[in-house]
């Protein structure tokens, strides 16, 4: 009997749900369209907002004439930047570059005297219907006095480039360099020095659900309630208290179901301040729903890497130099710009290269701001490392998989401190690579590739290794811990209140599984409450693959505390020793005499109704609250100023097969195989779902997705007709296998898996395309690999 073996502690739980392929607990609601998203929230007397946005990338704002809009049918309020600036403060930065050596710019909910990107909010209308609000917004006349604009980061770095911000002496947001080891010596002694570059396009996270906010003020209490499509309600609460000049305790953020986020719903967007302000002025609740054009404004990823690598004759990489320049658009209060920083810090990923010199520059340009996108720059680090491995393999005429194998951090080297100070926790990278290659059928596919080439077909095989630092804890920002309260009522239902939120991946289900196991409750009795700052304990929401590692562990600890209390009461009720009891299946049971049992709900009822009899040994409480702070984070800089901000490092190897039509440049992805290690897997259904979604997003950014701008500084991509996300028929076969190397540090052995898939798939697909066109001398340096870019790449002969 497995329970007996586990009943070593005080009434341990059964553990049957860990690792179960458990479908989402919210699944029935989701498939019936019953989930409530922010745009579904409808309040009595609610008005609708429409935002007038700048049509030009850079201009001084002269006169604004809103008289016609104010007289338009249904209009209740028209707000412009001057009035908004009197009534609200700049929005606090999620991560201000200034304290870490960069530059600060104030960000307001509406532009005041200058616009710095096309799409910047200039005015907003509240009206009885969305149509009336939109029609009225179009009646507002704004006198834009154009200023020169700059879209390209390199151009923005020129001494005579237009400046975005008064008082800045250039357009650099933050520039930094990091050097470890003896890079010069390594390059001097190297048998091979290879250089290259890779340029990544601007893309959009583009969740299917656009952002939406519904703001409501309680006239009596003066409190604001904001229903917000946000990933981080507690963080947003503090930011809005400051921008709206409120007591933080007077702000309640409620996040209903989120329809995907992928970073784009991290705070704080201008509309999160703007819509509450408008609601206060209009004297009624206001709803604003982003449209797709607005959603596609939120950018990211656009960066150029120039690398140089020193390698031995056997393919061992001795040293790397990499210079990263990111075009981060206009300054925002959002975390996105820091993806350039993280691209640098995440190098050299899973490869054992201690001599590194990495510089990065985040450059402000007259494009819409960045927000976080899945990968948060770590995908770019992985991409450039894989470009480096391919460059070495090509130069030395070695098998690309073998070059990776020779450079990966060894299984006996953990914990392994990278050149940038990240401390890789655990894993067996070599075995992960081997498993991926076997799943893919690497040797067979190489044979088929050779045979196909003789028939004039151009198959390409790409290999990539992904290390994804997850669960981040950033000094001055937070993270690295989360909170949970687990409650039971006398009817036996269990409520989990958590500081983590779900963007749609199903972490509520994982938390329910963990709590069911720890408490010995039935899964069906567990409800998970997320995203309400009045109800849930303080937490950092979702992002950086943190939810199960931190929130899941906090829930486990709280459930354990509650279980211990309930079991000790049950011991009195059953007249048994605590050590003989187990909690399982909704009951506390004498392990060796299963007929002696009491339902958890009955124990709970006894706690509150017989507190002076059965519960004398415990606090008569039906809830427990705990915080879990992830270990294996170091915020004390070492002698080189390095820190380890991530508790876990999930890792994976990918192999991809594509076919390239060399006449048209069309790439057809055929197969992606992955072996993934995120430590203990709570729910393989959910983890595989994350990986599959990540892989397809990686496919999209490798092959099609791009937010292009015209020379006029206006986005040329405003709908899904131009923003080409993969559709069902574009997706190749996806094969997944796992290796479980539990984290030796985290409570449950879990490592974050939230951002899995994207980095490795993007890098492997790029590698595969280059492999297909390499016999023609092709070299990939620019993404995305749409047909014209592939044809260009074939013309770009290897040097």
């Amino acid at each position, binding site marked *: 009997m497995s329970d007996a073996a586990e009943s070593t502690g005080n009434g341990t739980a059964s553990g049957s749900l860990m690792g179960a392929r458990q479908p989402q607990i919210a699944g029935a609601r989701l498939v*019936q369209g019953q989930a409530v998203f922010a745009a579904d929230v409808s309040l009595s007397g609610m008005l609708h907002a429409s935002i007038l946005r700048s049509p030009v990338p850079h201009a001084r704002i002269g006169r604004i004439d809103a008289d016609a809009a104010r007289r338009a049918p249904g209009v209740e309020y028209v707000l412009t930047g001057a009035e908004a600036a009197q009534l609200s403060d700049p929005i606090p930065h999620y991560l201000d570059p200034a304290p870490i050596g960069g530059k600060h710019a104030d960000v307001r909910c509406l532009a005041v005297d200058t616009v710095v990107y096309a799409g910047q909010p200039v005015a907003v209308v509240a009206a009885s219907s969305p149509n009336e609000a939109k029609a009225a917004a179009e009646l507002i006349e704004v006198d834009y006095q154009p200023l020169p604009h700059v879209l390209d980061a390199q151009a923005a770095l020129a001494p005579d480039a237009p400046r975005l911000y008064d008082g800045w002496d250039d357009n650099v947001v933050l520039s930094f360099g990091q050097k470890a080891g003896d890079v010069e010596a390594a390059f001097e002694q190297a048998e091979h020095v290879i250089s290259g570059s890779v340029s990544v396009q601007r893309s959009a996270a583009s*969740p299917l659900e656009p952002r939406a906010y519904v703001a409501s003020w309680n006239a009596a209490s003066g409190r604001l309630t904001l229903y917000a499509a946000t990933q981080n309600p507690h963080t947003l609460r503090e930011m809005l208290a400051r921008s709206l000049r409120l007591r933080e305790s007077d702000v309640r953020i409620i996040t209903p179901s989120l329809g995907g986020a992928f970073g784009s719903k991290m705070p704080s967007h201008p509309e999160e301040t703007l819509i509450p302000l408008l609601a206060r002025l209009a004297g009624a609740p206001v709803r604003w729903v982003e449209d797709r054009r607005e959603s596609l404004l939120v950018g990211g990823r656009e960066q150029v890497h120039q690398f140089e690598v020193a390698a031995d004759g056997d393919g061992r990489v001795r040293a790397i130099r990499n210079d990263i320049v990111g075009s981060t658009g206009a300054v925002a209060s959002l975390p996105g710009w820091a993806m350039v920083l993280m691209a640098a810090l995440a190098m050299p990923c899973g490869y054992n290269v201690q001599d590194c010199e990495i510089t990065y520059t985040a450059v402000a340009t007259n494009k819409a701001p960045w927000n976080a996108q899945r990968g948060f720059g770590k995908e770019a680090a992985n991409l450039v490392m894989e470009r480096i491995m391919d460059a070495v393999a090509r130069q030395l005429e070695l098998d690309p998989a073998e070059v990776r194998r020779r450079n990966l951090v060894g299984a006996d080297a953990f914990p392994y401190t990278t050149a940038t100070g990240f401390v890789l926790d655990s894993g067996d990278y070599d075995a992960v690579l081997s498993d991926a290659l076997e799943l893919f059928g690497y040797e067979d596919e190489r044979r088929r590739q050779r045979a196909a080439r003789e028939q004039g077909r151009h198959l390409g095989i790409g290999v990539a290794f992904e290390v994804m630092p997850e669960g981040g804890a950033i000094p001055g920002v937070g993270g690295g811990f989360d909170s949970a309260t687990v409650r039971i009522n006398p009817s036996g239902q269990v409520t989990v209140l958590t500081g983590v939120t779900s963007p749609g991946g199903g972490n509520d289900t994982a938390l329910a599984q963990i709590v069911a196991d720890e408490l010995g409750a039935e899964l069906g009795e567990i409800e998970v409450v997320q995203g309400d700052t009045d109800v849930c304990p303080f937490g950092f929401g979702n992002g950086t693959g943190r939810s199960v590692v931190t929130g899941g562990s906090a829930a486990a600890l709280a459930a354990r505390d509650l279980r211990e209390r309930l079991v000790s009461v049950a011991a009195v009720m059953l007249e048994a020793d605590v050590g003989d009891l187990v909690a399982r299946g909704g009951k506390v049971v004498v392990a060796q005499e299963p007929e002696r049992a009491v339902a958890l709900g009955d124990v709970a009822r006894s706690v509150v109704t017989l507190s002076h009899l059965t519960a004398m040994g415990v606090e008569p409480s039906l809830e427990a609250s705990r915080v879990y702070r992830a270990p294996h984070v170091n915020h004390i800089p070492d002698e080189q100023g390095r820190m380890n901000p991530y508790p876990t490092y999930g890792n994976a190897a990918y192999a991809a097969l594509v076919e390239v039509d060399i006449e048209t440049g069309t790439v057809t992805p055929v197969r992606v195989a992955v072996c993934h290690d995120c430590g203990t897997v709570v729910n393989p259904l959910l983890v*595989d779902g994350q990986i599959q979604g990540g892989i397809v997003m990686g496919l999209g950014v490798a092959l099609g997705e791009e937010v292009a701008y015209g020379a006029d500084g206006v986005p040329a991509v405003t709908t899904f007709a131009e923003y080409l996300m*993969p559709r069902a028929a574009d997706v190749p076969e996806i094969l997944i296998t796992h290796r479980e190397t539990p984290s030796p540090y985290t409570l449950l052995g879990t490592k974050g898996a939230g951002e899995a898939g994207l980095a490795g798939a993007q890098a492997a697909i790029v590698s595969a395309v280059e492999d297909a066109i390499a016999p023609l001398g092709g070299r990939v340096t620019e993404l995305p690999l749409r047909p014209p870019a592939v044809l260009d790449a074939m013309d770009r002969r290897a040097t």
Partner: protein
Amino acid sequence: MSQQVQIRLRVNGDAHEVAADARTLLVDLIRDELGLTGTHVGCRTGHCGACTVVLDGRVSKSCTVLAAAADGAEVTTIEGLAADGVLHPVQEALWQEHGVQCGFCTPGMVLAAAELLAENRSPVDDEIRRAIAGNLCRCTGYENIVNAIRRASAS
């Protein structure tokens, strides 16, 4: 100036008569006038399929239809699919196969897949992928959606 029009239609079997702004799209009438918020808005350009409903027997993107043009029509939304609390096989399979993550595209996906299975009891994967090609999903990578539809076809 906005012009009001009278629109009569049946939605999930119930007759409705609604006075609406002539500019109103069918999706907005369904969501705002009838309160059926399972029909979602992802793009308003007909590309994403989150607003998919069944209009006079055919799946249609309700953001591309003026409400006035649906006068006299028979509409089924996601709320009308499960009969007496029993999930449609496509709904059940999407849930069990984890073909649903955030659930935003799901109502449209369900209706597109249900139409496919009504016409083709045993579609091959290519047919499944073509049938949902008008419905974008950003979470799942489609793999589990295809698995779910295959499973539903076998049930």
